[in-house]
């Protein structure tokens, strides 16, 4: 009798430890998503700022300037629910404006243009990177949260179910001459 009770207690303690460890794992995953999301936001903002700077610099022709300014402005001001669409539209605008190598050459030739071009190239390469890391974290958290033990014992608490950030982040060809990096 006593022996059975001891075994039951041991079993319960083991289950408790396992659940506590799983909750710790989930907590760490949520922290990872938050950090990845912050990094993604920073990269998106950087990209929009460089685009806006270029649009107002006078290096581009007026039509291209307006298109790029519109898109960059919309991306920076977008509400959370429209963010993915606005950022995708900025990617499309960047592709349209910097689709040709000549346009990039013109930017580089302008005073301070070399630096601006470098910043834009870095920004359009880092956005897909940051997005991939963010969505990878989201996938890992979702896989764990779908597990029975997490659902039955409500280990996720009130944390919202993590959502992937889906957008078109294809960089302009003139800026993505290094394949296999996106």
């Amino acid at each position, binding site marked *: 009798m006593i022996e059975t009770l001891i075994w039951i207690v041991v079993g319960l303690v083991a289950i408790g430890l396992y659940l*506590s460890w799983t909750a*710790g794992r989930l907590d760490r995953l949520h922290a990872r998503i938050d950090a990845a999301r912050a*990094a993604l936001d920073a990269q998106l903002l950087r990209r929009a700022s460089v685009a806006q700077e270029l649009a107002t610099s006078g290096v581009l022709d007026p039509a291209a300037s307006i298109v790029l300014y519109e898109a960059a402005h919309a991306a920076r001001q977008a509400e959370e629910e429209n963010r993915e669409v606005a950022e995708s539209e900025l990617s499309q605008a960047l592709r349209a404006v910097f689709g040709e190598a000549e346009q990039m050459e013109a930017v580089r030739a302008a005073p301070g243009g070399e630096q601006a071009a470098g910043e834009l190239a*870095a920004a359009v390469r*880092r956005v897909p990177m940051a997005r991939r*890391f963010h969505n*990878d974290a989201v996938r*890992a958290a979702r896989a764990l949260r779908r597990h029975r033990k997490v659902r039955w014992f409500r280990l996720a608490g009130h944390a919202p179910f993590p959502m992937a950030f889906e957008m078109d982040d294809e960089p302009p060809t003139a800026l993505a001459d290094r394949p*296999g990096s996106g």
Partner: protein
Amino acid sequence: MRIGIVCPYSWDVPGGVQFHIRDLAEHLIGLGHEVSVLAPADDETPLPPYVVSAGRAVPVPYNGSVARLNFGFLSAARVRRWLHDGTFDVIHIHEPASPSLGLLSCWAAQGPIVATFHTSNPRSRAMIAAYPILQPALEKISARIAVSEYARRTLVEHLGGDAVVIPNGVDVDFFAKAEPKAEWQGGTLGFIGRIDEPRKGLPVLMKAFPRILEACPDTRLLVAGRGDEEEAVASLPAGMRGRVEFLGMVSDEDKARLLRSVDVYVAPNTGGESFGIILVEAMSAGAPVLASDLDAFAQVLDQGAAGELFANEDAEDLAKAAVRLLGDPVRRTELRERGSAHVRRFDWATVGADILAVYETVTDGAASVATDERLGLRARWGLARD
């Protein structure tokens, strides 16, 4: 930035991953970053100042061959001490899924962790059995890097999630500026790799060699690498054995000079390659490349635009392509030029910038790396001493 790099394989045994880590560490130090590499090494081995020994690796049969791995209580303690002393902004683990230092550090650390997956092994039963154990460690990795599109695909299939592709780096100028050696020039084919490792493909080349000699009798084959030389030429007719010259193990300088000298560099590997750094080195040295059409090789050679491909393990096809190349100096010059332009994307200047971009992306808005206090129960109940 304070960067910690974890090397899973013995520092004293030469290998692709070790060289990659050495070059990466030296490149980053050159840019002014603080770098510490944790690697298995014998206590007697002289180590560069930036390498910290994690103790001697133990040879264990793993994954079909004998691997030298680090595990156990002592190694785990060394990993924790290294993490604690280093206070790194980011740690970069290589091969986190191999049961060695990579996995141990993944287990012991928390904070921004970057991991590079080098190999693309088919999913093994051990991996499937270990999946529930691996997953909690692997899900701590904030950013995954695969060395090729092919490696990324296998990673996604086996472990889920996603990775960015950053190729291995090569010091292009080191190869491009090497001095050709006259005695290695004039109708020569080059091969570099372990002679007794069938996956490196020397037997395929030996099978094709008589046909190449029939068409171009002056051809010589230069072979650099360890292994039994007599066994390697055993399949050749006695009269042709003299056309094969064995150079043994060569230094980095001689390797570069060899690649600068040969008319065609042949890479007949039959499998097990996830990147193909030797092709990039050959192209950097301006050698026209003829390689088997493995996924990884085709990608490095830009689907055949920067080098010729032949059907894998097909000696007939290899011989035909080699003869065609040896007799066509115009095509060779064209390949030289295309190759030299193509390899710039594998130069450390480019690759290093990409890796730093990954570091900066994961450290944006994150605390530094610390040891993972796994027994956090006491802390959670407020009983831990601070």
